[in-house]
């Protein structure tokens, strides 16, 4: 459900056409591109971009098809205050598209409304994911690696397989903190690099 509903009557009165959108899934990016292409009268150009994105994503998905799916947890926030991404969030959706198992995936209790929920640390310890992806609200690499260290040294996280195997990865802010839009292919490439390192090296 998009925000900014209260803008509609104001803009409407002023005679400005308005369209509200929310982009929370991979598919919505494709649909939106197509729609904007038609809106701008250049559907061919939109099609080119879409095809490019789709082939990029498809090739990434194809390459991983025969590999065992790692279990992952996507954490958003800082060590002081954090939530976990469900399948309703953009990052959660991408992880799912790539065939990995998001241990927090199904805990959106509201039917597509809650992209991020606070999850029990005990549950995380029990599920013991293979990998942890960290999305912070900072684009500064130094800060991100500091968060990574703090998380790895926190008593509740320290014993996790992902931490001992050194598989806590920080996801780039520009691709994951908000939806990546046309860069969704890049976001997928980054995720694949972490999820299936043996494939991407080839």
């Amino acid at each position, binding site marked *: 459900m998009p925000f900014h509903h209260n803008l509609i009557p104001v803009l409407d009165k002023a005679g400005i056409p308005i369209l509200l959108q929310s982009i929370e899934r991979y598919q919505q990016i494709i649909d939106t591109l197509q729609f904007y292409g038609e809106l701008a009268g250049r559907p061919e150009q939109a099609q080119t971009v879409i095809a490019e994105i789709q082939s990029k994503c498809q090739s990434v998905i194809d390459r991983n098809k025969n590999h065992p799916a790692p279990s992952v947890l996507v954490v*958003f*926030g*800082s*060590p*002081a*205050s*954090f*939530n976990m991404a469900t399948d309703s969030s953009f990052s959660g959706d991408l992880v799912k598209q790539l065939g990995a198992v998001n241990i927090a995936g199904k*805990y959106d*209790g509201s039917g597509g409304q809650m992209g*991020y*929920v*606070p*999850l*029990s*640390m*005990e*549950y995380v*310890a*029990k599920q*013991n994911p293979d990998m942890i992806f960290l999305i*912070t*609200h*900072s684009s*500064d690499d*130094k*800060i991100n690696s*500091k*968060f990574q260290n*703090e998380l790895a040294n*926190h*008593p*509740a996280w*320290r*014993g996790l397989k992902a931490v001992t195997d050194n598989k806590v990865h920080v996801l780039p802010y520009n691709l994951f*903190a*908000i939806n990546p839009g046309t860069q969704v292919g890049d976001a997928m490439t980054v995720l694949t690099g972490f999820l299936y390192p043996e494939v991407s090296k080839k």
Partner: protein
Amino acid sequence: MRELATDPRQTRRTIIGMAGLAALVAALLAGIKIGAVSVTVYDIWNVISAPAGNEVYQIVYNIRIPRVFVGALTGINLALAGCILQGILRNPLADPGIIGVSAGAGLAAMTVMILWPGLTALVPTAAFSGALLAAGIVFLLSWDRGVQPLKLILAGVALAAFFGGGMSALMVFHSDKVQGTVNWMAGSFQGRSWDHVLMILPYSMVGVAGAMLAHRYLNALQLGDEVARGLGIKVETARFTLVVLAALLAGSAVSVAGLLGFVGLIIPHIARMLVGSDFEYLLPCSALLGATLVVAADTLARTAFSPVEVPVGIFMAFLGAPFFIYLL
């Protein structure tokens, strides 16, 4: 003469005290036993008697036990702070927020989390400093040959509004980063560890000791400044010391738990309904009830929709407010 002064409520108070203690122990044990992952009593015994680095040990010793203790200590501190403040200000609406503690801690913690995310490890320290700074400003503003209760309340309200404006500004201009701070703002024990227990424990100990010494002064202050002075109490000194004690208690609580309201306001009232207004019984009863409530509410909050955790602040508001209305 002393025999004559025996209070008929003595038995009732002893019973309530014992029941409170039992409830707290029950809440602590339940908090350790219950969680997103089920463990048996035998598992818990093993964790304590023969520590092994396995999964159960990790869950019980590193996640659940420290969390339960942080909850109990937070509850004690907030309830005592609220009780003391209601006593010295002689105002039933006083709570730790009234001396600016919540607003100061909130603004400081939020500033660190949003503007200097690299220093996130210092959030508890920042929150504590912010709380004390805010309380200090409120003291200064209300100082007129001693802390003046009415001035203190007004200064507290004004300062809370001022700092609240700062928080709103941060939220509006950094709306993309707010998501990383919301749990803290709602009051949550998510991911609390032994570090946090050690952080709050000294203040709880000082607070409990202080409260044991303070009940005489609080009782005397209830009679009004003139009478208290006539009884040989140094009113200004007593009031000042008590406000500092309350600020330390509340500041240490918000620094580990985030902005957890409600306990400091409601618990003293519930305690008063149970044991009466004599601070000698009111203070320990509040501490017991506060600890029990926070531990029990947090246990419920993290298991009700398991494995999703509702921040305990939200849960407490939803459960506590109707209960308080019922008590009225």
